[in-house]
């Protein structure tokens, strides 16, 4: 082989590299997604949970909440949703806190989205795989 000659194997490798770069650029353009929807989901849930009292909920829609009231796991329906979650968590009753949150949020998110709640530890989560994550924090009292 003479020095500086160009062989078909080199050409093949070059074109493969070229196509790979084009495909990755194309995929980057196609797959670049905004996280605004997730941001507003979390903000709105914080707002609703902080504003709405348990006594305002329609118990025929939220069966678990109704059961908790009947079973006296929820004693004060004048508490807001977030205050009740904190009460459960302070009593180290994450299981009821998770069931409470699930009852309230079930059906609100389509399959593309998951939701998780943390106080000190994670107390509720629906998604096992997280490709893009938006976390919002608020100071709550209860």
């Amino acid at each position: 082989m003479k020095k500086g000659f160009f062989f078909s194997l080199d050409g093949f490798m070059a074109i493969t590299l070229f196509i790979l770069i084009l495909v990755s650029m194309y995929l980057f353009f196609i797959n670049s997604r905004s996280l605004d929807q997730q941001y507003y989901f979390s903000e709105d849930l914080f707002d609703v949970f902080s504003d709405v009292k348990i006594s305002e909920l329609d118990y025929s829609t939220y069966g678990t909440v109704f059961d908790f009231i009947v079973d006296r796991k929820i004693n004060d329906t004048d508490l807001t949703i977030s205050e009740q979650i904190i009460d459960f968590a302070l009593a180290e009753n994450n299981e009821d806190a998770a069931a409470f949150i699930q009852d309230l949020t079930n059906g609100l998110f389509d399959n593309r989205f998951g939701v998780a709640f943390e106080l000190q530890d994670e107390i509720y989560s629906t998604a096992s795989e997280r490709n893009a994550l938006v976390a919002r924090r608020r100071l709550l009292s209860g």
Partner: protein
Amino acid sequence: MKRGQFWYSDFVIGFSILAIIGLLFVSAMVDISLRNQDTRDIFGEIISISNNLRSSGYLPYEWQDGNGRIGLIDSSRVNFTKLTLFQDLDYTKKSKVLLGTTKDFVFYFENKQGMRLVEYGNNGFFGDPAINDMNSIKADTILKFTRFVFLNGQIVKMVVVMWE
């Protein structure tokens, strides 16, 4: 000639193929970029409108005169008085102007079972009076943006739909 060696004519053919692929790629990217720009414009407006609708608004009894700012939600709860006042507004001359958009939109409420609450508005829809079904929206670009609100004892979705 050695086996596998690359010649001038091969180079010309190869280069032509690469140039064609490159041109096709550039035109595809330009097309995607233009479409993305349109989508970004609508997306910016849909977020802005959803923020307004989910706020308390300002001077609701003066919306009819073109004053104030449209907002339907007080402390996460849907205010039915404001919703009725909004519904009574002229869509083109008042609603779109007060919300600061030139694009068409509707919004509706959907419960956790995914059912549109048809007892409110025009078969459940507020905004463009020509729309009483999602299938009646004919457009190349249709975007949806969802917010959570509290309505009649339930946490529901307020879905804003905008198109161009």
